[in-house]
């Protein structure tokens, strides 16, 4: 049994996802053909033996709860522990820069108080990864750490702007300082990117909440950073792939990365599965006219058209003569005959009528909002 419980901040929103996060948090954005972004953090925790997970939800939590239900598909429907919904404070969704807002935790103090485990693993819900935290938990215990910050030695995806915190470690993996990447002048510092996953002693977290909870929206990372002298903070490395989704470009690129076998091997084809809601779709049907190459296709689709370098979610209908290129087609879209898409992201249940042509570009994929009829 694990000596940690988990908390996932599924309440961060973004104005840079061109409408994909209009009425859902980033965590609930569909990703990779059959998942939601949140599934990756949730499955990693479950696969690491964590059986109690609290989910900090945003104001618009319907899409999240619709997806999660009682957590059965993640084996979180249990007597001992399970999935807990932690309603976040209202103002935290749009545009908030904070990663782990103390106020959100203070709102749900009982979740932390009633458990008796030693540690709390906290992750943001807007990252794509498949990580087993068992090593980190051991590392944390062996080092008698107050806080363990997970970092990656280099940024696997060159997405420059987001992973803004770099760690400076001493010889014993102890964190000497946290640097903001943008204000960093020293070029010589090793690029150890903090990946927004931390392990913290539960008692310490409760102390922090008690002390800082009343001061408006404080960020947990900032608090840790300003108390670096008094706390025992360590950095633990990970080699798993991590992709943060903040902008539409991130979303598009991280999705297309899945067409690379090396990425799929690390994310999906190992022992630890990524779990998601099960819909019981029939297998995907290819007709005589189907032409598919270098693409990921989920179940329950009917494919009569051409698909190249694309990702097709569950229950999509592609009619004869249509051509899907470099595109992401979310669940239940219907593309009629001879319609064409290139560098396009169709949100759920979009209908594209005959002969329409939708075109974006590599750096600016075209996004079509949910349930649009074109």
């Amino acid at each position, binding site marked *: 049994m694990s000596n940690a419980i988990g908390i996932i901040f599924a309440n961060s929103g973004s104005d840079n996802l061109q409408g994909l996060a209009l009425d859902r948090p980033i965590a609930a954005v569909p990703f*990779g*053909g*059959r998942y939601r972004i949140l599934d990756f953090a949730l499955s990693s925790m479950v696969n690491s033996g964590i059986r109690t997970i609290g989910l900090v939800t945003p104001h618009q939590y319907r899409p999240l709860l619709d997806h999660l239900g009682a957590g*059965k598909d993640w084996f979180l429907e249990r007597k001992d522990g399970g999935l807990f919904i932690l309603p976040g404070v209202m103002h935290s969704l749009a545009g908030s820069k904070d990663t782990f807002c103390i106020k959100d935790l203070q709102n749900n103090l009982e979740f932390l108080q009633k458990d008796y485990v030693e540690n709390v693993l906290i992750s943001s819900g807007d990252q794509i990864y498949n990580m087993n935290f068992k090593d980190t938990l051991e590392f944390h215990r062996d080092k008698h750490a107050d806080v363990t910050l997970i970092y990656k030695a280099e940024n696997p995806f060159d997405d420059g702007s987001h992973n803004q915190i770099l760690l400076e470690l001493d010889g014993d993996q102890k964190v000497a300082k946290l640097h903001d990447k943008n204000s960093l002048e020293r070029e010589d510092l090793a690029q150890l990117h903090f990946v927004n996953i931390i392990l913290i002693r539960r008692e310490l977290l409760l102390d922090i909440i008690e002390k800082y909870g009343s001061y408006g929206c404080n960020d947990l990372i900032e608090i840790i950073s300003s108390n670096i002298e008094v706390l025992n903070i360590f950095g633990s490395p990970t080699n798993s792939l991590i992709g943060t989704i903040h902008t539409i470009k991130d979303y598009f690129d991280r999705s297309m990365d899945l*067409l690379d076998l090396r990425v*799929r091997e690390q994310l*999906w*084809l190992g022992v630890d*599965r*990524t*779990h*998601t809601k*099960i819909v*019981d*779709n*029939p*297998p*995907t*049907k*290819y*007709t*005589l*006219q*189907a*032409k*598919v*190459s*270098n*693409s*990921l*296709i*989920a*179940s*329950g689709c*009917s494919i009569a058209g051409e*698909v190249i370098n694309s*990702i*097709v*979610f569950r*229950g999509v209908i592609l009619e004869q003569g249509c051509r899907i290129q470099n595109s992401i087609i979310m669940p239940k879209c219907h593309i009629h005959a001879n319609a064409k898409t290139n560098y396009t992201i169709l949100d759920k249940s979009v209908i594209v009528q005959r002969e329409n042509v939708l075109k974006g570009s590599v750096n600016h994929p075209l996004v079509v909002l949910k349930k649009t009829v074109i």
Partner: protein
Amino acid sequence: MKRQECVAMLLAGGQGSRLGGLTRNRAKPAVSFCGKYRIIDFTLSNCTNSSINTVGVLIQYKPFLLNSYIGLGSAWDLDNPFGGVHILPPFLGETEGSWYNGTANAVYQNYEFIDYYDPEYVIILSGDHVYKMDYTLMLKFHKEKKSEITLATIQVPLEEASRFGILTIDSDSRVTKFTEKPVHPESNLASMGVYIFNGTTLKQALIADKDDYLSQNDFGKNIIPHQLNIGKRVFAYKFEGYWRDVGTIESYYQANMESLKDGHFLNIFDPKFRIFSNEDIFPPHFVGSTAEIENSLICNGCTVHGKVSNSIIGPGVYVGEGVEIRDSIILPYVKLHKGSSVHRAIIGENAEIMSHCNIGAERKIGSAHEGITVIEDYHLITEGTVIEAGKHIYRSRAI
């Protein structure tokens, strides 16, 4: 205990020996069907969709994989506080007990289970049929006719009628005659092996059958004819829809292939009547740039680099470059390596075909005979092997 109106007894213990290599390691109801399903999914889903929430599954032959697949029945929403799925294996009592000897004997031995729920009606189902049926309509018919035993029936082509139990009925749908596998069938109305009994009628019938030493303790062969003879009210409910018995390699192959046709019930996602399945979690399937797929079903977790036509590819299958699959059924987790070709074959679960094999090769002599080639589960076919059409490859049994 809440009294149940109708309890289902699902017969899932048969060996299914006519499915050859496919049932070497598992009971027939646990055999993979149409990619992501297993045969028992259809009957269990029908129960759920017909609001029958108490199901006894009678098992006997090779039960491990079947039991672990069924679990608590949660995949079919059958894990409920009012009944749920109960696995019923043969057992020993203080003085009696034996293997199940016939379908009727299996139900008889578990009468304690039925008594526990004390249902007004008992529906007898079989775990090896592929169909989508709302049993509530049949139950409604049963009540309307004040029937004591109702048989679900379907019209079959007359030339195939001698494979089934054939009924003769009067204008009121009351059964006048029932013959199991007749040489000269009188009608084409076949029994589907789905029966609704009044609780009391079933109990009496089973006890009478138990005391009959000449009986083979089979519903079709003994119970139904006997109950007709003693004048019970037996009615035939006509089911209109798709129903297939998949008890032989040929019928299993045909039924799978039929699901490739347009409008087949499996291809249409019907949110009101879903076919549930206890699937493994896999990512979407990946289609490589050298792949060509036509008129086929592909499941989650597959990787396809080769050519696939008129075939069904189960979950987690790997199809290497240059592989050619035609008119075949590839069961879950099979690996097909570079340059192999597969024609009119059924490749068992977890089998591995190394590179440049030819499965289902045309025979040089007597090529008029085109059988279905079957490779058993977990079988490894070494590089360059040629297997002639119609061969069934089994492993030699370890002792």
